[in-house]
């Protein structure tokens, strides 16, 4: 009996928020206060997003802490299903519910890396150097191998010596930009995960 926080004790407890909380769960929740632990998402910013894993398309709510003030980098503290979505109604699978571990992950890449021919390691490189080097390589290849006209003299404007893949993990808009990117260069060899 001494272990039961009964209603009277609850009402007397100064640590407890006031006001009745009878929710859609159909349960009077007032006595269920756990004073020991603050709700970890009580002070978060919520952002609506969509799970990046499979194509069920579950909506998620990303809870971040940190107000983006000058020295504050927001960080994800929790990700949970979005109850508004008719697809998942707040539910998520084992992968989706642990998306925080994907975003906040010490294995994430955080700077551009370069591997020189014959080398056995990555070396950090600045973005500017990387872009300059990559652009030069692309242009050299394109200038050397671009096919304006095929054997029959027909205009084909293609770059057969560069292949490109990707996009299935990215948004429509990026995929659209990818199509401009590859047709700009003349790349035909292009596939995404739907091929596999």
């Amino acid at each position: 009996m001494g272990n039961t926080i009964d209603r009277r004790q609850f009402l007397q407890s100064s640590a407890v928020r006031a006001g009745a909380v009878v929710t859609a769960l159909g349960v009077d929740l007032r006595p269920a206060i756990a004073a020991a632990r603050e709700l970890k998402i009580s002070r978060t910013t919520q952002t609506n997003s969509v799970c990046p894993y499979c194509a069920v398309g579950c909506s998620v709510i990303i809870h971040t802490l940190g107000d983006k003030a000058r020295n504050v980098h927001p960080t994800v503290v929790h990700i949970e299903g979005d109850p508004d979505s008719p697809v998942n109604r707040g539910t998520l699978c084992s992968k989706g519910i642990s998306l925080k571990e994907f975003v906040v992950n010490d294995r994430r890449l955080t700077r551009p890396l370069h591997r020189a021919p014959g080398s056995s390691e990555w070396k950090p490189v600045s973005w500017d150097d990387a872009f300059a080097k990559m652009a030069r390589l692309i242009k050299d290849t394109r200038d050397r191998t671009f096919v304006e006209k095929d054997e029959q003299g027909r205009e084909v404007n293609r770059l057969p010596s560069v292949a490109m893949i990707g996009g299935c993990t990215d948004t429509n808009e990026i995929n659209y930009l990818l199509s401009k990117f590859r047709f700009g260069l003349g790349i035909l060899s292009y596939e995404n995960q739907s091929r596999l």
Partner: protein
Amino acid sequence: MTNGWTDVSNADVILVMGGNPAENHPVGFRFVMEARRKRKAKLVVVDPRFNRTAAVADSYTPMRAGTDIAFLGGLIHYAIENKLYHDEYVKLHTNAPFLVKEGFDFAEGYFSGWDGAAKKYDRASWQYETDAQGFAKVDPALEHPRSVFQLMKKHYARYTPDAVANICGCTAEEFRKAAAVICSTGRADRAGTILYALGWTQHSHAVQLIHTAAMLQLMLGNIGMPGGGINAQRGHANIQGSTDMGSWNNLPGYLKIPRANMATLDDYLKANTPKPLRPNSLNYWGNTPKFMVSLLKAYYGKHAAKENGFAYGNIPKPGETENYGWGQFFDKMHKGGIEGFISFGMNPVANGPNTPKMLDALSKLKWMIVVENFETETAAFWNAKKLGGKFYPTFVDPAQIQTEAFLLPAACFAEKDGAFVNSSRWLQWKRAALPPPGDAKPDQEIMSRLFLAVRDLYAKEGGKAPAPLLEMNWDYTNPRNPSLEEVAREVNGREIAGGRQLNGFGELKDDGSTLCGNWIYSGSWTEAGNMMARRGQDDPTGLGIYPNWSWSWPANRRILYNRAAANAQGQGWDPLRTPLRWDGERWRGDVPDYKADAKPADYGAFIMLPEGVAKLFAADLVEGPFPEHYEPVESPVPNPLHTNVSSNPMATVFHGPLDKLGDAKSYPYVAITYRLTEHFHYWTKHVASGSELQSNFFVELPEELASAKGIEGGDIVRVTSARGSVEGPALVTKRIRPLKVAGQTVYQIGIPIHWGFIGRVRGPLVNNLTPSAYDPNSGTPEYKGFLVNLEKA
């Protein structure tokens, strides 16, 4: 998906075959459970493994990997034989009454028109018999011996329950039981759905397999019906959107890539704008010129003018019969024919077939650019000898690999906005929650800065064929890092004069006055704003059509072919389950897959097809108008139907030194690869939670095989194919049954994917084993049903 996730809850029967939604789409599977709860729906699972979907199913039938066409063909036979098909639907909404030209035939594994020397078909005999105006002739009674119906009936007469059992390895009784449930939906008041995934697409006869499923569903009157359809459960968040935006053979919106023989835009439009095959065919692809010209305007802006064919010449063009698909370009790379390779978030060393060949191909590159969240096996392929050497005995040291590689850190989903298209074709907008870590950047910035850097070099130095590059429109407010909202508005399309956002593809013009990045997405960002970000909860039909939640292509239509859910009078086959009905003046319910103001009798229900009706007989596929059971490229038995033509005669197979195929003598067991619910693809091996749920690679094998080989659960086994090997502990189970096939016992082995030589948890790459054999229509590799040997390591 023709119907979408939420609609699955309307089904009476759910056939899960070639997929495992309980494990791989658990949240989508909730609608299966809802159908069972709400409608007492029956869940039928047909799969090589008694998996977690089977664990909660009403019926489970085991089968041999790669024999799905036999099973489905058997169902078609069963439906016809027992008169279980939906006769009125078949007559109204399919090409069953169409007459096929004289000369069409199937014998000894080949359709008519086979050219043994060229190893391909002349499809002339697969065409409809047409009248003077070019319209197909029909027999509404379906009795003409050359009617599609009669030809189909004859074709599948061979697929008796006994024949199915002999091929698939289940018993004829098991087949009949499953068939009775599945074919019970061939009535107006019942609907059945099919859920499939890579278990159907990863075959050397994949497209035919899905065609068979579509045929079955058409026979049962389930296409267009709520709770019906054939529903592909796609495996990546935006694999649908990525496909919608084109691949090597498609421009955005499934416009075909121009070929070298189509020198001008007119040539292209002539070749790609179909003519109606029936008087009542709406033939919506007849609007191709509007879609294409608007796309060219979006691509080339002011450089696209009527006079220059809207800069059509800038689009790269393959030769008429050339193929630039996955199998082909990696083969070319392997032969040293490719210098540069760019990967935006893909990991071909892990997910492509035949990893030893893949590694070899990448090592021939001059340069490679990989944009990723994590270091992948592809990015670090040059280190494979050190990291995964045991499995790559012939792969070379880094010092011998001259590929210059860049690994660029990209923002992840939470750090970017933009839209993903789910399996239901819903475009769901997401918002960025935080900036990327460290020096990582969003993909659009990486791509744009690279593109602009190349373009600057051309502008400064000149070079070969600068026009396609310089004329490509990149005129965004911030070209170095375009706002995805701005890009999304361009994709939706607008009037060039005045800039009004279009309401839908109906407003597109072929005179250059509109631009549109992808016609099927037109309507996603109108003057009313971002339709993809809508969060409306209402479901007016009560059928799980949420018209105001996000936006669905095309035209916010949630159930494709929904006109077919209604009869000739426009009234629903099932009055209690009708997504669309004609009230005498207009169509009500879902956005009609039909001309909105046309009467029920005006057009055929399948407006995208020149026939105006759905195709049971489809001449577009390369290996025949009717699907036929062909064995996988590597098979434990010769095809019981025609031993001389065992596997798909049109399958794409390579024959280089690293492309070996194995035979049943050396590699007696059938292997399948698949995902587990614990992991997502090759990503979660980097993630702590997935690593905990299943830390170890393993090989699943039947108890009987294990005991014959003296293997106990946990023993390390080695699995070998003609390409390579993997090693790991054995999971010995009753859940994979030995099968009796063509008089012999066939064992199947299950090998989950998910591990690799880089990650928080590591294990062998299963694609060390898989063959470079592909479906000829779609180019998907055969990961289900290849041959291996197994021994205790």
